[in-house]
């Protein structure tokens, strides 16, 4: 996104400008819920509980950046028949009041066609996309297509990157900069990794874009702790675990509400 500020970044900025911290929960698209509920109902509960945006996983057969919880949810959603098209169609009919971002892997997008996928994402009213196996070096074809379609591309910045690399990633990123909190795949950890605050601080010193930390943020306390430095958090496995265990939109909403309260308390 050159120059223009997109829908996701606007939503996050309004939270930050009001002195708050951003909360972007993640849910696996197409994940079966309990009787009478759909995954989109859970999306609604997440938005209503104080999310500033919601990340929707489009499940892939070989998710190398994901730990056991999101792997299990992906597999279940695939078995239930979820496809990129079905998820985008359901998102089209959904009005959450906050922006959404899709998170998926390169092959699903490549197979769909970079341009066609970007156009479909925009048509579905989805603000942004996150492709964890498309690093800067490979981002050209996707970013060109996304820019044309007006889709914000959230880039990941990792603790292993040197300053020049982090700056280049932040420069290319739209919506927010996704700071990978630790060396490892998605999943909850017992305590907040030391690397989380370090990467957030490094990025904050080099960009004005919102810096959200994801990977390894498993509890409201950890979210609040990392937000001493970061502008916000992405919470994935904790949300998906709750959805898997309870199949209840209310329970997921309560969990997200707990994160919102902790961030408000600071």
């Amino acid at each position, binding site marked *: 996104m050159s120059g223009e500020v997109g829908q996701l970044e606007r939503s996050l900025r309004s939270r930050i400008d009001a002195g708050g911290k951003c909360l972007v929960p993640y849910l696996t698209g197409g994940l079966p819920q309990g009787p009478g509920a759909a995954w989109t109902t859970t999306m609604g509960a997440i938005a209503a509980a104080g999310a500033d945006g919601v990340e929707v996983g489009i499940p892939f057969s070989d998710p190398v950046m994901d730990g056991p919880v999101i*792997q299990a949810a992906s597999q279940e959603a695939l078995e239930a028949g979820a496809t990129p098209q079905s998820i985008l169609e359901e998102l089209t009919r959904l009005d959450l009041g906050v922006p959404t971002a899709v998170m998926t892997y390169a092959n699903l997008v*490549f197979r769909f066609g970079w341009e066609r996928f970007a156009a479909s994402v925009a048509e579905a009213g989805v603000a942004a996309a996150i492709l964890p196996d498309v690093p800067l*070096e490979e981002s050209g074809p996707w970013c060109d297509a996304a820019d044309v379609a007006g889709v914000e591309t959230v880039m*990941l*910045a990792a603790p292993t990157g040197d300053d020049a*690399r982090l700056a280049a990633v932040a420069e290319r990123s739209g919506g927010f900069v996704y700071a990978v909190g630790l*060396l490892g795949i998605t999943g909850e950890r017992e305590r907040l990794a030391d690397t989380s605050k370090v990467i957030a601080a490094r990025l904050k010193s080099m960009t004005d874009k919102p810096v959200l930390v994801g990977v390894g943020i498993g509890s409201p306390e950890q979210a609040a702790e990392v937000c001493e430095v970061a502008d916000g958090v992405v919470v994935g496995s904790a949300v998906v675990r709750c959805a898997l265990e309870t199949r209840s939109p209310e329970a997921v909403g309560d969990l997200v509400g707990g994160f919102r309260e902790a961030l408000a308390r600071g």
Partner: protein
Amino acid sequence: MSAPDDTGRFGRFGGRFVPETLMPAVLELEEAFVEAWADDSFRAELDHLLRTYSGRPTPLTECPRLSEELGVRVLLKREDLNHTGSHKINNVLGQALLARRMGKSRLVAETGAGQHGVATATAAALLGQECRVYMGEVDMARQELNVFRMRLLGAEVIPALSGSRTLKDAVNDAMRDWVASVEDSYYCLGSVMGPHPYPWMVREFHRVIGVEAAEQARDLLVGALPDVVVACVGGGSNAAGIFSGFAEEPSVELVGVEPAGGAAVGHGVPGIVHGMMSYLLQDEWGQVTEAESISAGLDYPGVGPEHSHLSDTGRATYPSVTDEEVVDAFVLLSRTEGIIPALESAHALAWVARERVALAGRTVLVNLSGRGDKDVAQMMDVLADRL
């Protein structure tokens, strides 16, 4: 076969589709490999190990009884005679030395049939490195002996429990491990696949197969070269190794033989998985489909990017053979030459046997990439009624 371009591509295939966490490591690896490969002392140490530890050069063997049976002159490049029983050791010794040079004390690897895992565990024992090998749970059951071998050598073997629980899933888990351990660990990838520089680097470490074979063939054939060079292809490392000795010789036909249930070049379409763009077995949405082959080492839905490129340019062709044809070839070589081939290598022989009429009167060089001892337990069931 030349180096890929600076984006790590052979034609339109290859690249570096890895999580951002790994990108610096992949760039560092490329730099370290380029530097080591240009360093005479590194090459000398590797050559020394290949000679005194692995037993290179491996012989080129005439097969008079098999040739008579098929009406095709068959020569075998005997990679099965390497230490640990397959060509895999060529690459692993190179990478383990590179890991040491880079100051990484722990090797992470994936394995299908267990040959690459055994080779990695061996090199780690030799150089005093820690070693963890991921192996699909299904493969652990069908290659029990290799699991024990790896553990005996001091490696930790971790079952891959997701998806089809075979090689593809072992690669996923090895990459997940590397994402978490990248600072002190070296990912010792076992084939000409994955993100750049692996497809190129692994091919260079196997180039020795082709270089030796070309020289040996010239000696045996009084200056001539074989008409056809054949190798099995899963990821495609032994094929890349032997092809590299003949690719610049236009008279030599190059044939990579895929399993019918895992024919990525034959039946796949371009896709992105495990860090590379290449031909891939997948459904209409891009979900990777599960390969199904009698041989755990070829049970893989993708293929190395350089093979996709060689197929596109027409320099090599990639037919496939069925499990039944493979079993017949496994028995045929055992009975005619007293050599029990690995099920993987039996794919290359199965193609020669099937195409014997078209190949009549020609000289065919088959890369016998591994020995079949590891497959004997599995084949006892398959052949119970025949023997």
